[in-house]
């Protein structure tokens, strides 16, 4: 582990130096295993936040208050510590150029992590596939990769804040709903390829609404974070 980056008060990115890494695709995750001194082990999956083209593999981890592993990763881990991990894992929730678009990325909370890998990959390969990200998060302070998202060109980033918003906030101010999706998503006739990632409630709501609005279920890929994922 070579660098730590505070993303929000509850999340940080862990930059890894992996000499034997065989590469990954945007959207994949790793299985990370911690071992206590007495041999006790705990294993969890974390999405990769970096693009395949990035120099280092980066994980972004959000602290879950009752979690067993995430508080250690967010609060205890220090530069120079070694981590045992396996991956990349998962071949479905991935995006690469041959899959085309237009691309609609819907992220709830830390569900934005694998979508950020897709954004960075899209940018690294100078893809012309139209891309929109709708990122739903509680408050502006909970927005990860804020400067990076603000600096992106050629893609459309929409934020919705669900709990509180700063004065003069011009983005959306509610949880994802039908009207919000109708406004943000390309029309069903354009057959967007949709990636939805977040907690189960967010994913169920978004995917159900998209199906009701006439989007092809076969072009909607989902990934969920269980409440016990930490």
């Amino acid at each position, binding site marked *: 582990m070579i660098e730590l980056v505070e993303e929000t008060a509850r999340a940080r990115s862990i930059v890894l130096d992996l000499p034997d890494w065989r590469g990954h695709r945007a959207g994949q995750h790793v299985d990370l295993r911690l*071992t206590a001194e007495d041999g006790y082990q705990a294993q969890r999956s974390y999405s990769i936040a970096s693009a395949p083209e990035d120099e280092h593999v980066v994980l972004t981890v959000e602290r879950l208050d009752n979690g067993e592993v995430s508080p250690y990763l967010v609060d205890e881990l220090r530069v120079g510590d070694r981590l045992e991990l396996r991956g990349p894992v998962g071949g479905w929730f991935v995006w690469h150029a041959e899959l085309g678009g237009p691309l609609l990325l819907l992220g709830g909370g830390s569900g934005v992590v694998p979508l950020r890998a897709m954004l960075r990959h899209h940018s690294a390969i100078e893809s012309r596939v139209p891309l929109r990200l709708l990122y739903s998060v509680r408050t502006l302070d909970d927005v990860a990769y804020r400067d990076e998202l603000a600096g992106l060109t050629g893609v459309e980033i929409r934020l919705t804040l669900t709990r509180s918003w700063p004065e003069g906030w011009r983005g959306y101010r509610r949880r994802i709903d039908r009207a919000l999706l109708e406004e943000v998503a390309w029309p069903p006739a354009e057959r967007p390829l949709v990636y939805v990632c977040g907690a189960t409630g967010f994913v*169920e709501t978004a995917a159900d609404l998209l199906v009701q609005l006439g989007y092809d279920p076969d072009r909607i890929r989902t990934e969920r974070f269980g409440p016990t994922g930490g």
Partner: protein
Amino acid sequence: MSSFSRGFRGRRRLEADPARVPPGQYVTGDFPVLSAGPTPRTPLDRWTFEVAGALDEPLRLSWDELQALPSETVSVDIHCVTGWSKLDTTWAGVSLDTLLDGVETAAEYALAFSDGGYTTNLPLDDLLGGKAWIAYAYDGEPLDPEHGGPARLLVPHLYFWKSAKWVRGLRLLEEDEPGFWEGFGYHNYGDPWKEQRYRGD
């Protein structure tokens, strides 16, 4: 690789009998949801369960016909490849022994298929002998769509991705054929006690 993670103690879950928790798993009281796409919602009057492939007469059951078969209530431990295990889960449904009773086949494998296009493969022997059910109730209630309702395959001795949600039938095969996750690098068999998570394990 370091032999331990500096400063990590973990939170032992002493309430769980370690003999019931496979390696690399942790016990949860929740019921996390995992799936690759939107939750399908097929009306029960259009729901059927088919057994097709290597058998003389394909089987096709309506929802009412499935309900009319003798049901069993079982309490089992389930193990998800993402790391959680849930102990003492209670399901009701029809045993595959009941469903396939009288079926003559040379097949040694089965590919379960579901609404939404999901598939998973397993040896036919793993579906027989009191090891697998078509489950339509969880904890005494109709199975929630998020958890695979109206009916899902329940094969608790294998990782839970083998317990196909929204199951609509089985194709009996003489040659094995990888299912959805098996084609994406997950283990072909998936025994949690041997930690067969990914291809090559």
